[in-house]
């Protein structure tokens, strides 16, 4: 469309009735009425520190009301009286509902001061402290409306902090971007903030270790000390407001890196090493490369599928819950991880029992079988009839891969759920794919390194094979127990927090 065609529809006659162009001394314009509400949530009350910064013209409008003796000036006594009046009006206009109950606001202190503005006129700054009693020792959901007129030109801002109260989620930030209307950020006249409502979920008393967390995905991430930074970076990229192509590519690159890092964790690495070494000792020379590639591919597919299945289950179960999605995700995610953990424990125990039945014999036959059907996780596990092949074959290697990729890594899950919660599901799926690919690359690389042409490194490791082989099932059990514990912990946290 012709860019000028639209403005044609703007009848310019209206422009002629515009106010005169003035030397704007006030950064938001001579007409503006600017409002800040700083909410502090304490265990027994909410304190709203209100600042109203009025520019020259509204100040002139208000001065006639403040100047009681009509002597043309507003003295200290008149200012105090007017401040009391206006704060009482504001207290009547502020609306806050805590779990369906309307709160009553009382002004406890007030003050009005004037500052010199343009053309010998004054600007005014009104300060009020309003208090509403409310019991915040238990989880409470608060809807706040400042009562400021959105159609009135000016900056409108709300902040919220907990003092002895944990804030799980708040639609407004903790810090004022205008320093409580003291210094407006650049460009604020063109795009003034227009926040007049706030939604806050208070979690009851704040524990020393839990300073109020900002909004975002539930804390599913079990931090990896070395990768924590990358995880945070990725999470912030995923939740960034403006998703551009460079940001998207950076996020995918980070997902790859994170996946590779994840593969280096205990468990995956051992599986890969075991699989590849089995491959090198097998009947076919060069099977190591194939094995490594097979394991890598399987891990990618299985891991991606695992994460997606869990994400799908969570999304499906919370789609009906609407806005309580985020608060429930912690609980559901925890429960699901716990269920997976329990199934893994059962499998691991069965495998161990199976080993005992075999008298510890033929170790190279049953390692890697213990989770052969693991891709049905959460479903039926018909174990106990381990395949007996003459050597390490592709199916067994696939089993290793399945085992390695089965457990959805919490960090990948968080990335996916975060993206889903933000309505960027497809991007989340892409990131998880990248994550799985990163894992696969790392595992394959490790496998190739170790199997490639009988190097010293491979030889070195070969000497450790027996110990490694014995340890694999116990390692699985340990991993399963950890997963179960993490799942229970997350579920518990989600239940308490929700």
């Amino acid at each position, binding site marked *: 469309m012709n860019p*000028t065609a639209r403005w044609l529809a703007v009848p310019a006659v209206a422009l*002629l009735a515009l106010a*005169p162009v003035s030397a704007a001394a006030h950064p938001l314009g001579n007409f503006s009425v600017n409002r800040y509400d700083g909410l502090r949530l304490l265990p027994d009350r909410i304190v709203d520190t209100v600042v109203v910064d009025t520019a020259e013209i509204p*100040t002139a409008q208000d001065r006639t009301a403040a100047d009681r003796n009509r002597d043309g000036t507003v003295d200290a006594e008149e200012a105090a009286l007017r401040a009391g009046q206006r704060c009482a009006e504001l207290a009547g206009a502020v609306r806050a509902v805590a779990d369906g109950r309307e709160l009553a606001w009382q002004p406890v202190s007030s003050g009005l001061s004037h500052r010199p503005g343009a053309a010998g006129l004054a600007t005014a700054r009104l300060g009020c402290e309003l208090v509403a009693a409310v019991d915040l020792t238990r989880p409470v959901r608060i809807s706040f409306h400042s009562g400021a007129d959105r159609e009135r030109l000016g900056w409108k801002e709300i902040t919220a902090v907990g003092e002895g109260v944990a804030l799980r989620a708040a639609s407004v930030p903790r810090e004022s971007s205008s320093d409580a209307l003291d210094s407006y950020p650049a460009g604020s006249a063109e795009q003034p903030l227009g926040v007049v409502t706030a939604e806050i979920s208070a979690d009851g008393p704040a524990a020393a270790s839990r300073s109020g967390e900002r909004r975002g995905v539930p804390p599913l991430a079990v931090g990896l000390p070395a990768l924590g930074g990358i995880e945070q970076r990725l999470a912030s990229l995923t939740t960034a407001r403006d998703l551009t192509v460079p940001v998207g590519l950076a996020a995918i690159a980070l997902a790859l890196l994170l996946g590779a890092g994840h593969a280096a964790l205990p468990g995956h690495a051992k599986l890969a090493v075991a699989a590849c070494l089995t491959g090198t000792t097998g009947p076919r020379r060069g099977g190591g490369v194939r094995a490594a590639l097979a394991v890598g591919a399987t891990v990618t597919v299985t891991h991606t*599928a695992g994460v997606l299945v869990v994400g799908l289950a969570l*999304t499906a179960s919370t789609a009906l819950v609407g806005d309580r999605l985020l608060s429930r995700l912690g609980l559901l995610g925890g429960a699901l991880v716990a269920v997976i953990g329990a199934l893994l424990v059962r499998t691991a125990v069965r495998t161990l029992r199976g080993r005992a039945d075999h008298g510890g014999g033929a170790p190279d036959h049953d390692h890697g079988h213990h989770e052969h059907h693991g891709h049905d996780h959460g479903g039926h596990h018909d174990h106990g009839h381990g395949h007996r092949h003459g050597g390490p074959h592709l199916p067994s290697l696939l089993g290793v891969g399945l085992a390695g990729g089965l457990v959805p890594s919490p960090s990948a899950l968080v990335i996916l759920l975060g993206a889903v919660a933000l309505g960027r*599901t497809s991007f989340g799926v892409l990131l998880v794919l990248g994550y799985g690919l990163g894992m696969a690359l790392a595992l394959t690389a490790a496998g190739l390194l170790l199997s490639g042409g009988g190097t010293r490194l491979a030889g070195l490791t070969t000497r450790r094979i027996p110990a490694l082989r014995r340890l694999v099932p116990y390692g699985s059990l340990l991993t399963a127990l950890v997963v179960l514990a993490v799942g229970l912990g997350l579920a518990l946290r989600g239940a308490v927090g929700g």
Partner: protein
Amino acid sequence: MIRWHGIAATVGGGLLVLACAAGLLALGPGTPAPPPGRVAAPPPPADRLAAARQATEARPQDATAWAELGLAAVDRARTTPEGGQLTEAARALADSLALRPEHNYEAQVGSGMLANARHEFAAAREFGRSATTMAPDRAAGYAVLADAEIQLGDYPAATAATQRLLDLAPGSAAFTRASYDLETHGRTGEAVFAQERALELAGTPEEQAFCAHRLGDLAWEQGELATAEQHYRHALALRSDDRFAAFGAARTAAALGRTEEALQRYGELVERAPQPQFLLELAELQLAAGHPAAAQLAALDAEVRLATGPVDLALARYLADHGDAAQAVRLLTEEWGRRRSVLVAEELGWALHRAGRDGEALPHARFAVESGSGSALSRYRLGAVEHALGLPGADDLLRAVLRSHPHFSAYHAGKARQLLGAPGEGER
């Protein structure tokens, strides 16, 4: 066989992944799947200004995007006076012209719009002329030109530009300008017809509301209060934030004797938009109703002190009636030197009358009535000037005004009655 197992497993796994992804997409929050090969970008905002800002961020080297931002910001300034949008518009247009100094039609038009908004009509005329020279068959330049010429008092040029605009783009904007042109020439019936046509052609609720409140204004000028009120209500139903409709509704309520409602409507209006015209009407209603008007007058006084640049006619009117009439004369004489508009002539004549210079006031007041729309207020003003000069026919003129429009102004209708009741007496 084993290979087949492997392939089957891989294919199965792949299918599972795809199925899961599809399920997630179906269940996830409703966002359309992004076009293949592209990362999902946030959808462009419906708001024109926000969309324009986004476009300039995405393409900072695009002169057209900057020009569109300038136009969108000028447009926004209509509803949020002093919102900093005019500054933003000026910067965006300067950026656009810096990127493409030559053949930048959009920026020329935008600069003309901006100059009109700033009441810098001579500059607006230059932009309009250069735009129409650059592209004689594009409409937007003629709209800028028409707006500027009518304010500068070059009525033949304004009519020519409006006619060209009508020929090129016979839409809502063209018929609105045609209506304004006809009204200025006192052809009210045709002005109403053109404005009704503009309303029919209006595409957005905003435009429709604008046309509806213009129809209200036309009815008001003819003293058809009930019709005017209908149009204003219609406009407010379309856009509750149409300030001129809110103003019209308050003014009509006052004229129909519903003073309390009028005071409340005015109060809400000046709370949101303390523009001189609105403040002055409220103050005069308060004065006529015996209420204190100090807050409004103080705000008007502050606006006079803050004002720089071209004169706002409503502020000049405030000065003439409630402030320093000599200052009003000074400001309006300067303005009359810049533009020979009937509107300026009417205000200058009135300011001269209020300053006691009725002899000088008379030609301006006559010019305003004879060459302008012949509004009730302008005829009352001429009558008051003639009355002060003791001219025959002054009282007949005043009576005619009160007959056709008994409540043309809450404040001045009473003054007119005073003049008729006590001939020869001053009106203060």
